[in-house]
């Protein structure tokens, strides 16, 4: 036996997963409150104590961790055109596991600067212009940033003609130059930037977030949690040499404040006569809906789906729905705990969250008639052929209606233009194994995949 410990410092809970990499099996999981305000080790020790109470004393050979504690990796970006370098910057940040607070387009204004100073991001990503293209915007934005008190690192990944000048303008700042996220029109190049972002997270932000006390214990990597999940979903879908993955998938994580969607699929058009619009789509894509969540962002679900629909699904009157929703917004730590009304409302909200977040993640198709006959215009990823759906998040785990809720991620005849899976097998990640195995996969990919598949097969009940 070779026990390895995986830690996920979450915003609320520190989740521990113990695995035996020699026999590729899960030993057990435990969690405790994250204590980032005082000493992160308190929560960690408590979690370890609980884990040992279950499993007995284990001599962990290696320990790896990911973190979304203290707000996670908070980023602000600025690009030029919103749909082009603005979007490229956003995708680069999301793919690096960041929480994107704001994406600015065109020239930064005084108001924007005030907002940036107030938000104090962990990293600022400055882009704009294709190589040899517009330099005016990125230079202007660098000058604007330079008027602020240097308090966060700036990654410069815009028009190569202008990046050196940006660096000079921001000479008092900690800056990093990366290749342009959009070197040519319609070409995304985000790997280097993402690598740089993760490195900054590792070297600088860990300390700032009070996580360094815990690092003495860690063998190696620490990464943002979404970054670990991205590795996990990719491993699960693609598999490894000698071990098959489950194929193209969508993963849904409905939280209290946000809903994260991951997809692993090419998303190529189905019909030959399809014209693709917009930026090229990453094979492994992550989107985060900041206004879709079960408690803090409950209003966003109501706005998107409509109070009437939520009320009908919850079998409540609209008035009662509004009343209960108000209560949940004010008491964000509420769990239904047997209350029939709240259970039904949570069910309806979860359905809405899944539906809206996956709809925004998936691409769209439009039929148009041209002189040459019917043609299609596709924007985003075509996920109709994806057959695997992995779900996680309290509202999907602590219910018997997981499958029913998850089905809202699928194609709906009411929205035929939304390219969501026509059908799918539902897998439940009950113990947040995706992040843990994503972490483990950096060093033990085979064991990580075996455990991941086994856990999901048993819907997390194999323990």
């Amino acid at each position, binding site marked *: 036996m070779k026990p390895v410990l995986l830690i996920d410092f979450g915003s609320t809970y520190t989740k521990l997963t113990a695995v035996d990499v020699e026999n590729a099996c899960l030993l057990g999981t435990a969690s405790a409150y994250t204590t980032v305000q005082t000493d992160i080790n308190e929560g960690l020790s408590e979690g370890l104590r609980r884990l040992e109470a279950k499993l007995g004393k284990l001599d962990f050979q290696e320990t790896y961790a990911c973190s979304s504690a203290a707000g996670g990796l908070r980023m602000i970006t600025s690009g*030029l*055109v919103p*749909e*082009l*370098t603005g979007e490229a910057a956003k995708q680069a940040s999301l793919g690096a596991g960041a929480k994107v607070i704001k994406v600015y387009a065109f020239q930064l204004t005084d108001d924007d600067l005030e907002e940036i100073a107030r938000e104090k991001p962990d990293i600022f990503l400055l882009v*704009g*212009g*294709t190589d*040899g*293209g*517009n*330099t005016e915007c990125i230079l202007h934005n660098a000058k604007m940033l330079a008027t602020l008190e240097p308090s966060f690192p700036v990654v410069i990944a815009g028009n190569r003609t202008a990046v050196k000048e940006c660096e000079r303008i921001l000479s008092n700042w900690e800056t990093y130059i990366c290749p342009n996220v*959009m070197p*040519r*029109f319609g070409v995304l190049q985000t790997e280097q930037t993402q690598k740089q972002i993760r490195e900054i997270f590792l070297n600088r932000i860990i300390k700032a977030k009070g996580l360094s006390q815990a690092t003495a214990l860690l063998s190696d990597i620490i990464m943002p949690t979404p970054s670990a999940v991205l590795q996990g979903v990719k491993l699960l879908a693609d598999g490894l040499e000698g071990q098959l993955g489950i194929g193209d998938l969508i993963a849904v994580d409905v939280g209290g404040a946000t809903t994260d969607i991951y997809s692993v699929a090419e998303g190529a058009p189905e019909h030959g*006569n399809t*014209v693709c*619009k917009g930026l090229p789509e990453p094979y492994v894509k992550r989107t985060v809906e900041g206004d879709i969540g079960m408690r803090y962002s409950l209003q966003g679900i109501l706005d998107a789906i409509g109070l009437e629909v939520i009320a009908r699904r919850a079998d409540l009157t609209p008035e009662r729905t509004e009343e209960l929703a108000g209560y949940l917004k004010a008491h964000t730590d509420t769990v239904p705990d047997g209350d029939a009304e709240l259970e039904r409302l949570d069910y309806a909200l979860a359905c809405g969250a899944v539906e809206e977040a996956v709809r925004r993640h998936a691409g769209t198709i439009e039929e*148009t*008639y*041209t*002189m*040459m006959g019917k*043609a299609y*215009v596709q924007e985003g990823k075509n996920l109709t052929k994806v057959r695997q759906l992995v779900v996680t998040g309290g509202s999907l785990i602590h219910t018997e209606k997981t499958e029913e809720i998850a089905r809202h991620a699928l194609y709906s005849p009411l929205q035929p233009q939304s390219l969501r899976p026509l059908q799918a097998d539902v897998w439940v990640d009950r113990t947040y194994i995706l992040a843990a195995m994503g972490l483990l996969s950096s060093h033990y990919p085979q064991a990580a995949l075996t455990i991941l598949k086994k856990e999901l097969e048993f819907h997390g009940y194999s323990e």
Partner: protein
Amino acid sequence: MENQKKKVLVIGVIGADVHAVGNKILYHAFTEAGFEVVNLGVMVSQEEYIAAAIESAADAIVVSSLYGQGELDCRGMRQKCDEAGLKGIPLLVGGNIVIGKQKFEDVEKRFRDMGFDRAFPPGTAPETTIEALREILHMDGETA
């Protein structure tokens, strides 16, 4: 050559028009002539030309239209360019830009009134357009 930077063109076929062949020919011809070409392909909206022109700091936009609806598709494009800060960017258009038997002088005038710098009749050779671009972009003697 004084200015080493290549002139940047944004090209594409406007509207619900899927004629892809001429677009590819123009891409090669312009590239061959020494331009940096951002090719948006077919079914391009006015907004897409403009967004691409902003990011790439384009020197001109060359619009193709082969299916006869060009006049409708191009309406308001100059105003949108102005709005987007691309003031005075040369706009060129060519192909089968209108239907029916019309005198091309009339067609050209209408496109000029719409704010296009040049309009080319059906059957225009790429060289003609390249010549016009050189003139508009003051590239006398330069190889783009």
